């Protein structure tokens, strides 16, 4: 029979209690662990509270609104979004917009960063250039609402600009969480 390659003598290395029962209890470590656990629970509660408030998207803190200087256009959007989760930006063109046709410029970052999926209603024409897209819609009675459906592809901060082409644009910063 082959002898074992390595051998070491058995020693009584496990800590005992009352010098009789080998348990290996480490109460000092366990006390530190309980303190760590308590801190962790506080952190978890804070994360859940922040999540309920919308700090990670889909809540009151995440919703935001912006309007153009002449109050002709206003946009409701989510300033905090989640990767891969659909969201909607609503752009409302008010009566203050004295226009014959509704044209909206949306910067390219709405596609490359926020993953623009759909524009509702479908625009009559789409022009590309000037770092974005200019959508033209058939005009009905005002106010009119155009919806942009996003589905962000990656986490990060994205800056998008929306507004009437040739005029001061509304600039938004959207944080996308993983």
């Amino acid at each position, binding site marked *: 029979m082959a002898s074992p390659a390595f051998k070491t003598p058995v020693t009584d290395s496990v800590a005992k209690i009352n010098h009789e*029962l080998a348990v290996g209890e480490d109460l000092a470590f366990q006390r530190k*662990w309980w303190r760590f656990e308590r801190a962790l629970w506080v952190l978890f509660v804070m994360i859940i509270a922040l999540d309920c408030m919308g700090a990670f998207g889909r809540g009151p803190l995440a919703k935001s609104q912006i309007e153009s200087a002449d109050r002709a256009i206003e946009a409701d959007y989510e300033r905090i979004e989640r990767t891969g989760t659909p969201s909607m930006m609503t752009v409302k063109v008010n009566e203050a917009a004295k226009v014959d046709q509704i044209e909206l410029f949306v910067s390219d970052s709405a596609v490359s960063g926020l993953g623009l999926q759909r524009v509702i209603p479908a625009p009559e024409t789409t022009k590309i250039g000037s770092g974005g897209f200019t959508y033209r819609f058939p005009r009905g009675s005002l106010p009119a609402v155009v919806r942009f459906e996003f589905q962000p592809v990656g986490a990060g901060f994205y800056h998008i600009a929306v507004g009437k082409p040739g005029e001061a644009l509304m600039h938004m910063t959207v944080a996308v969480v993983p």
Partner: protein
Amino acid sequence: MTLFDFVIVFLIGGVALQATVGRDHSVTNCFTAILAIGLMHRFVAWLKDRSPRFGVIVDGTPLVLVKDGNWQLEVMRGMRLDPEDVMAAARAKQIGSVFSIKYAVLERNGTISIIKQNES
């Protein structure tokens, strides 16, 4: 099984499910994901062997719940255990009274070991 082993078992299940229902349905994806977890398990086991302190962090430490017939209340409260839990383990060893327990130890795998009064 220790808590870490439980996590590994559920993780393998979860990864297999994710690899099956996720965007990448390939067997390669599923196989390599499970293989990675298996290797991670071996790596953690190796680390535990090399460093007892790391082993204590991953698996915890045995804790004495009853010593010389006295409840160790700090440990009981810390581990959210009731005397009923200890007595359930005692009954499994045909011990019907708390006075017959000399030591009760919460082991790293979550079981409670009972040492009778007359055994030590």
